């Protein structure tokens, strides 16, 4: 029986890379960076400071 696929077509199917396991896929960088900003916000929010503590604007070491 004559094959319905050419050798080139078979090769192209066989050479499709296997799907990358989920854990190894690069993260969605923007989403991750946004989550980091939110995480930092949560960490900072836990620090209660007296009103008298001013920002380090006049920063002279």
């Amino acid at each position, binding site marked *: 029986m004559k094959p319905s696929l050419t050798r080139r077509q078979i090769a192209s199917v066989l050479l499709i890379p296997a799907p990358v396991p989920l854990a190894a896929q690069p993260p969605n960088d923007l989403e991750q960076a946004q989550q980091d900003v939110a995480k930092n916000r949560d960490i*900072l929010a836990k*620090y209660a400071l007296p009103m008298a503590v001013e920002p380090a*604007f006049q920063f*002279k*070491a």
Partner: protein
Amino acid sequence: MAALEDSVFFSTVTELNARLKKREFSCEELTRAFLDRLEQFGPRYNAVAAVLRERALRKAKDVDYDFKRQRHRSALQGVPFGAKDLLAAVGAPTTWGAVPYAGQVFDADATVIKRLDKAGAVLTAKLAMVELAGGPSYRYAAASMTGACLNPWDRTRWAGGSSSGSGSAVAAGLVGFALGSETSGSILTPSAFCGVTGLRPTYGYVSRAGAMALSWTLDKIGPMARSAEDCGVILQVIAGKDNDDPGSAGKSFFYAPQFVRKFSDLTIGYNLADFESYAEPAARPAFARTLEFFRSLGSKMIEVEIPSYPYGAVLSTILGGEAGSVFEELITSGKVDRLADAKQIAGLKASQEILAKDYLKAMRIRSVIQNAFRDLFVKVDVLLTPARNTVAPKAADPLDRGGYVPSPAPKSRGLQGLIPAANLAGLPAVCFPCGFADGLPVSMSLVGRPFSENTLLVYAAEFQKQTDWHRQRPRL
């Protein structure tokens, strides 16, 4: 003139200056030799952004004219140096390591370059850097328009960042010394990974006029060189008041080791967990020997722990908030997408979401952190800790994969997190090589109270008087 012997390229600045004064070779001969070396070896390490041959030779001829007439300007006179490519210099583009700024040209030198020029030092090259000095963050060593900067001790390893080319070029003997900059770790890390001596000055000591801003309240410029003494000599030239830098502390620095208190009158703070648990096992023998050396000096040694604050969150919020403002146009125009590193791009975009209240909260916690370090430095004069816990990572590996994780987890915080903490507090630090692990340099750091550079440098110089780790050089 016969070719200069290899040892010349690994001489300290004071040695080079002394040989120039003795007319063993002219400044032009020395400069030509360093320029040839930059062109020959620079590409091998991706360490160079631009070689300034024309400018350097013009300056070298001026210096020779000065030497001929016995006009001695400084200990740096005639010494070829390189500057991180975030410092403006006439004669070459200033790219900040980033494709969107590839064609950027300034018509005036940065203040530090002007000061070095006046002192007779010869600018030979702009040195490679991580794009935008690392921005909020980056994932790969290749986050630079010049590619991953490679470590002269092992070309499969990274040179460290973001002053990558400065570390690599000094280690490979391509420049007599270099200028780097640090927002959080960018002088200490490449110095440690490349085995050179680096100094992060107190915030405000060295003018940043003409330098790329990443974070106005965190950025510092400092020397990367072959010895602690070199760093002192260089800092003396580059420090000082500058009306063009709003953050200038208005103070001059004089390298005066003779006026530092005796070692027996000083107290060193350290934490054993840093040496025995957090450091990767291969590096521990070198760190242990260094700790023993400092014990032998007769200083009082006390164990301390870093004050407990969320340094990472505070630093990221301040750096992100300020970088988001500095690079607002880059981000909103979409040109940010031309950067090399996806994590850097994402971090800059996300920085636009940092709220005013978050930034102010971080800056308020920073005030508390500064006070906590003031209190700590009542008990100790300096803090001693490994500069990095590990050797340089592989250049191809993701940098956010995490480093060595001690197991079991140490009970003490040690002085872990001192790089972001000390940067938030504006404290000076010196980093110096103290041995090797798996054939790669490992380094120690000393951190002190503001404007205590002389004390830090004297300790490091004493170590370098009695050891020769800083004299080791890679086989190119």
